[in-house]
């Protein structure tokens, strides 16, 4: 009996957190009838994919999806390279100035990022990078979270493995590439997933730095379309679902990495 009450509570909360998605899905699947009604019409009648075809063919949604894919793939790839390089000496080398570098990187967590928004815009203007894809991902590929996450992973590798490789005559770069990187693959996966979500969802920096709406990633583009076609609720609903689906699918398949990443990132 108590167990039943518990499940009722759990289900009620799940409805609370997922209802907006389900409702949007329902709006996107219908082509007729009132969008808002009192009480809301939750029946599954007259369901069709027409809005999805419509939004895909008449609005620049494919373009936004391609922009997002490009920015995300390049951004995640560069993050992995830069962070896995930077974290390696911090974890496994003794060198002059190591502590200074380490605490300098740590201190950036305290720096107010909203100042970065203003100054980076000025910097990008000077570098003549405004309105380029590079300007979107450049400021966030040296991820502090990533450096710390990977540093932890490198630290857990036993010294013997490194010594053995050195004995065989391998140099630093080779050891990093052939011995270390394969061993931190799970942490790399965690970082890749986090950055994927961050780049896919980013909209604030893109709308600041991109002047041509045709270059917007999906989240920014969706907001822009909502401004232009507010009356076409069903198309916007379909676009909303298209923007959300990849993230939810990735999340459901990689939940384990997610939970690990949050706790590793937040509690050090």
């Amino acid at each position: 009996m108590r167990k039943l009450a518990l499940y009722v509570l759990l289900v009620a909360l799940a409805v609370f957190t997922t209802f907006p998605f389900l409702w949007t899905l329902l709006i996107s699947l219908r082509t007729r009838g009132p969008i808002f009604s009192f009480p809301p019409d939750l029946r599954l009648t007259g369901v069709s994919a027409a809005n999805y075809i419509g939004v895909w063919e008449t609005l620049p949604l494919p373009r936004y999806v391609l922009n997002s894919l490009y920015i995300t793939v390049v951004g995640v790839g560069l993050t992995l390279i830069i962070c896995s390089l930077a974290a390696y000496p911090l974890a496994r080398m003794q060198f002059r100035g190591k502590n200074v570098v380490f605490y300098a990187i740590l201190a950036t967590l305290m720096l107010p990022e909203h100042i970065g928004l203003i100054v980076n815009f000025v910097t990008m203007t000077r570098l003549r990078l405004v309105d380029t894809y590079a300007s979107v991902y450049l400021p966030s590929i040296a991820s502090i979270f990533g450096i710390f996450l990977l540093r932890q992973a490198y630290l857990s590798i036993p010294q013997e493995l490194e010594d053995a490789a050195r004995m065989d005559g391998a140099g630093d770069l080779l050891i990093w590439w052939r011995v270390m990187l394969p061993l931190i693959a799970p942490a790399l996966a965690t970082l890749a997933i986090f950055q994927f979500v961050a780049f896919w969802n980013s909209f604030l920096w893109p709308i600041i730095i991109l002047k041509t709406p045709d270059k917007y990633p999906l989240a920014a583009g969706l907001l822009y379309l909502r401004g232009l076609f507010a009356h076409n609720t069903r198309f916007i609903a379909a676009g909303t679902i298209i923007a959300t689906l990849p993230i939810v699918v990735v999340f459901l398949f990689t939940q384990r990495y997610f939970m690990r990443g949050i706790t590793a990132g937040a509690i050090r």
Partner: protein
Amino acid sequence: MKRRTTLIAYLFLLPALSLLAVFTFYPVLFGTVLSLFEYDIINPPRYVGLGQFQKLLGDRYFWIALTNSAKYVLVVPVIQLCSILLAVLVNRRLRAIGLFRAAYYIPVITSWPVVGIMWTWMYDQQGVVNWVLRSLAVIDRPISWLSHPTLTLYAVMFVTLWKGLGWYMVIYLAGLQSIPTEYEEAAMIDGASRARVFWHITVPLLRPYVLLASLVSTMAAVKVFEEIYVMTRGGPFFSTYTMFMYIFDEAFQELNMGYAAALAMVLAAVILVFSVINFRFFRRGGLEYY
């Protein structure tokens, strides 16, 4: 040999450090300098000393934005309490509990534009929020939640709560799993009620996690921007106009880079003050955890 290692180490660090230098460290320095200038990107900067800060004191919109940003901190204790309770709820071995945790986490990974679009419909006159509240007889006529002079700020806060809950749940779940169950069991055996165990044993043991989560949450609340931008843009009548909204408008709509930098400095100071308050508040009580 030592020198060679140092060289190699810095070669590994070079890409990350140069990016951080340009896009993270330099902005703080240049931002501070910028707040002493008038600069619109097109014309050369003009030194005005503390002029921007003087201007700010007499600026009506600055005070409105500051008040709203400070008000937004009200959402912090609510989020923390709800997410601790949620974490306690899902911290048990049950069939399909993973599925429920996933359901609570989905808002966290959703982009703000999507959240904004969905909740604009939820809050519509004919939307679900009004329907539910009317069915429960809480209100007798629909309210336009996103264009109400006093309620809109709280309506937006509710969305912050909805989206943030899952993230804090995971933090507290990690906290709960690090607490040995003996304490709670011992108290239960001594006849303490569930509520007493929660307030007097679980919450104090979670203290370091509460500190961390409320720090993060307070900082996010003071510089709230995304939820405002996608739902109200500061309206109606500036009732949801926050510091970050003002900075955004000054910097990227008006191109008043110097004034925006001065506002950003003030915001950074406010964040610092709230963080210190947080530390003080949770350090009391003497549990030496950190």
